[in-house]
C-alpha cells in the first residue's frame, strides 16, 4: 500500500512572493558588501594590510 507523504508546509503565493523579494534583497546586500570590500582593497593597494587604530 502506498503511503502518501504529508504535504509539509505549503507556502501561499503571497508568502512565496515575499520570500523571493527578501532573498533578492539579501543577495543585493551581499553583492554590495563584496563590491565594497573589493573597491576598498583596490583603493588602499598595499596599504590594505595596515590597520590604524
Amino acid at each position, binding site marked *: 500500500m502506498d503511503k502518501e507523504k504529508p504535504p509539509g508546509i505549503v507556502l501561499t503565493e503571497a*508568502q512565496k512572493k*515575499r520570500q523571493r523579494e*527578501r532573498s533578492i534583497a539579501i543577495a543585493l546586500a551581499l553583492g554590495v558588501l563584496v563590491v565594497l570590500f573589493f573597491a576598498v582593497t583596490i*583603493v588602499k593597494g598595499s596599504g590594505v594590510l595596515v590597520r590604524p587604530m
Partner: protein
Amino acid sequence: MSIVENHTLTLTPRISEAGVADYIALLKPRVMSLVIFTALVGLMIAPGHFHPVLAFTSILCIAVGAGASGALNMWYDADIDALMSRTAKRPVPAGRVTPQEALAFGLTLSFFSVMTLGILVNWVAGGLLAFTIFFYAVVYTMWLKRFTAQNIVIGGAAGALPPVVAWAAATGSLAVEPILLFLIIFFWTPPHFWALALFRTDDYARANVPMLPVVAGANATRLQILLYTVVLVAIAAAPWPLGYFDAAYGISSLALGAGMLWLAIKVYRNREGAPALRAARQLFGFSILYLFALFAILLLEVVVKAAAPLFW
C-alpha cells in the same frame, strides 16, 4: 483518571509575510536621513584628503548602524509602540514582522556595519559606531526611555554621535570641531522631542512612557524647552567667535537661532487649547529645518572653499 487528557497539539510554524518595505521601515528611514546628512557634514569638515570610496563606505556603515539601532529599538519597544497612535502601524506592532525577525535584523546589521567600518576604514570610527548603537539600543531604549523623564536628554547623545563617528572615520582621531557638532545636536534634541511630546502627551501617557509633559506637566516642559533653546542658540553660535567656523555660519546660526527662540517663547506663552498645540507643532517642524539648515551652511562653506580656487 488522568487530569491531562490526550490531545494532539498541532504547531503551525509562522511563515513570514514581511516584505522588503517592512524591513526598510525597521531602519527608521527619516531618522536615518538626518543621520546621513549630519555624518556627511562631519566627514566634509574634517581636515585632509579622504578617498571618496572610503568616504562612501563610512557614510554607508554609519547609516546602516543607525538603521540597526532603529530595528533594535522597534524590537524592544513593540509593546509600547502598539499603544501609541504615532507608532502603532510600525512593522512589529502591526504584526507584519515578528519581534524575533526585528531582533535578528538589528543584530545582523549592527555586526556588519561595525565590522565593515572597523576593517575597511579604522577602528576608532568602528568603536564609536558600536558605542552609538549600544547607547541607543541598550542605554536609551532598554533603560532610560521607561525609567526617567530625562530619557531623551541623555539618550540624545546617541543621535548626536554620527558626525563624530564620521570625523573619526576621516581622521582616525577626535578634535574640537566634531565635539561642537555633537553639542549642537545634543542640545537640539530636548526642545525638538519635548515639542513633539507636548502634542502627543496622551500617547506617551497611555504607553506609560515618562516623557517630561507626562511626569512634570506641560508648563514645566514649556519652561525646559525655553531654557534648552537658549543654551542651544548660544552653543550653536559659539564656534564662530571661537574661530572654528566662519562668519557666514555664525550670522546664519544667530538668524536661525532667533527663529527657534521666537517659537520657543510662543510655546512658553501659549498654554491653552489650539494655539498651544499649534505653537508646539510649529516649534517641532522648525527645529528640523533649523538643524538641517545649520549643517547645510557648514557643508556649503566647505564646498565654496573647495571650489573657490577654480574661479579665482
